[in-house]
């Protein structure tokens, strides 16, 4: 177990965001060594970069948007048919939609209903309204579009662009951007710098939504199954550790350091602890059961096919896809659910039984039955029109 360093290196990528914590902590706590894998974690430049490296095999796996493999496979965010595998979910919740301070006073926290009129007013003043997200078909993209739809803002009237997170902050600062959806700490940073406020957190859109996942290279998952299992074990243990509130302060300190997120620990810590300073003099919103969670007794980590189908249904809904994909086949192909179950079982982690069962999205109370995505689409489209 101690000669880990002689084993073949496994490269895991991460993006400097708060929710890279499970991978970083597994490394920092020595969990990878504990499970006998030689893991190196490397900081990556962008989601597109993560995608390319997983596909070419330069990375064996990475901290990745849960929906990215589906976006890539269906040709929205990549070359159609390219396979990346989802090994497990890393966290729920913990993203947000930030609006620029121009909207301050016009729209309040969770006052999604007011958004449409404000946007319309701005458009009428012959200005563009620009929202940003991080990757086409990624989770943030979907949260943003879902929110816009719920707010009754047509996706055709608002400009939705993909740009790297720091550019969102910089652009919002100079009044070039009206809102964005991104993971922490960027929403916290906007509040801290006084350039925007949190309109809604994603857990308010969908409580306990799947967010980041451990996504791995196809060949790696096939040829080095044991190593992958050990990696997952280490990450799972880190997840468990992170869900202990007592550990979160330390976690914030570690991931805030230069090699990782490289951000002030206080910004990371506050939102990691569930204390959301909303900005724009709206005070502090306290989340206690639905802030960024990493384990929830195993509820978090199971990669659910039903969720994948939900994302693909959203792609249909938002016109990303013209023809319905083969929902079940794709979900089967890209989600290594059996592998997860094997690992969870060996660690005596409870396996939730709710996959492929209908669920409800909180924001608009829309019910989704993963076995009938077509019906769902018919329903939402009729509402939209």
């Amino acid at each position, binding site marked *: 177990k101690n000669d880990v360093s002689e084993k073949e290196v496994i490269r895991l990528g991460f993006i400097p965001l708060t929710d890279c914590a499970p991978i970083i902590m597994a490394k920092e706590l020595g969990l990878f060594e504990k499970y006998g894998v030689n893991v190196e974690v490397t900081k990556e430049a962008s989601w597109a970069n993560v995608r390319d490296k997983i596909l070419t095999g330069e990375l064996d796996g990475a901290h990745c948007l849960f929906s990215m493999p589906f976006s890539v496979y269906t040709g929205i965010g*990549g070359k159609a048919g390219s396979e990346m595998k989802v090994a497990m979910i890393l966290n729920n919740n913990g993203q947000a939609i930030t609006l620029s301070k121009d909207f301050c006073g016009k729209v309040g926290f969770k006052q999604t209903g007011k958004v449409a009129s404000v946007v319309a007013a701005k458009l009428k003043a012959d200005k563009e309204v620009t929202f940003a997200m991080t990757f086409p078909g990624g989770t943030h993209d979907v949260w943003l579009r879902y929110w816009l739809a719920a707010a009754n803002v047509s996706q055709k009237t608002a400009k939705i662009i993909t740009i790297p997170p720091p550019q969102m902050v910089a652009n919002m600062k100079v009044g070039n951007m009206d809102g964005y959806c991104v993971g922490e700490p960027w929403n916290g940073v906007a509040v801290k710098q006084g350039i925007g406020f949190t309109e809604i957190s994603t857990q308010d859109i969908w409580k306990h939504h799947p967010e980041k996942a451990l996504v791995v290279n196809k060949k790696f998952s096939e040829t080095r199954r044991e190593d992958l299992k050990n990696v997952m074990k280490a990450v799972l243990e880190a997840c468990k550790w992170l869900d202990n509130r007592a550990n979160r302060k330390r976690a914030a300190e570690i991931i805030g350091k230069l090699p990782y997120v490289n951000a002030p620990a206080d910004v990371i810590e506050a939102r990691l602890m569930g204390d959301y300073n909303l900005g724009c003099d709206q005070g502090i919103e306290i989340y206690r059961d639905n802030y960024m969670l990493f384990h929830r007794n195993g509820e978090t980590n199971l990669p659910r096919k039903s969720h994948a189908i939900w994302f693909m249904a959203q792609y249909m809904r938002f016109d990303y896809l013209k023809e319905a994909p083969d929902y079940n086949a794709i979900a089967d192909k890209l989600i290594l659910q059996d592998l997860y179950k094997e690992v969870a079982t060996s660690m005596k982690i409870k396996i939730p039984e709710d996959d492929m069962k209908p669920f409800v999205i909180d924001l608009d109370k829309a019910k989704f039955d993963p076995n009938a995505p077509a019906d769902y689409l018919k329903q939402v489209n009729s509402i939209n029109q």
Partner: protein
Amino acid sequence: MKRAIDIPTAVAGELTKENNASPSSSRWQPVLRKMASVLVGLSYNLLGFVGLIGFWYFISLITKGELPGPKATSVVFLELISDPFYDYGPNEKGIALQLFSSLSRVFTGFLLGSFIAIPIGVLMGSNSFCRKVFYPIVQILKPVSPLAWFPIGLVAFQSASHATVFIIVITSLWPTLINTSFGVASIPDDHKNVAKAFGFSRWKYLTKVLIPYSLPHMITGLRLSIGVAWLVIVAGEMLSGGMGIGFFVWDSWNALSLERVISAILIIGLVGLLLDWGFSYLEKKVTYSI
């Protein structure tokens, strides 16, 4: 110094050795000649393009279609340019509209950059004090990436579109500056002595000696600069988001739609080619022939 194309050489001096002066050649009408030479020129260009496309096809073959070939790309390309002016809201604009928005930024940046670069280049080339003072600054600032300039531009101008123009200005001016100063510094002493011996005013020296001599160098610099400006617009629009051909590339790359990336490359390249033809034309108009 070779200069413009229309150097009056012996008529037959233009002919190749095999194709020696035939009596008939001198009877050709100039217009006919011109047309023929344009046609020949075009056919060479065509040859170049065909070669490029062949190479591309070959690469696409050996990567087993990972890199989309000319055929797959042409479908997307034609689709793009079939309706270049449509405007279905902010997220869906025809390629021509995107292009115009980028072109206007590129030109603003490029022109501003040239207005800075040419005088400074002339100063640096003609005055050794200026050269010594500016040189290290130029050398330090030259290699700085547009990416690094962007935040600085944002802070300084408080506007993303100004910052985009700023990064184009500051990254595209170097080739013009350096080539201009090289050209100016290489004015032969003979020419300078003529100016001095006949008491040329500063203005006359500038217009009758300095500029005619260094113009070809300047134009080579400007050509490189406009290339860099195009190169930077992508970085700029990626950072500032919004509209333009640069953002289109970034967006397509995010979606890894290589056909669209290559189509955009082709469009950028074609526009670049047109710009460059403009420069050649200019060059021919203004440069002297030795």
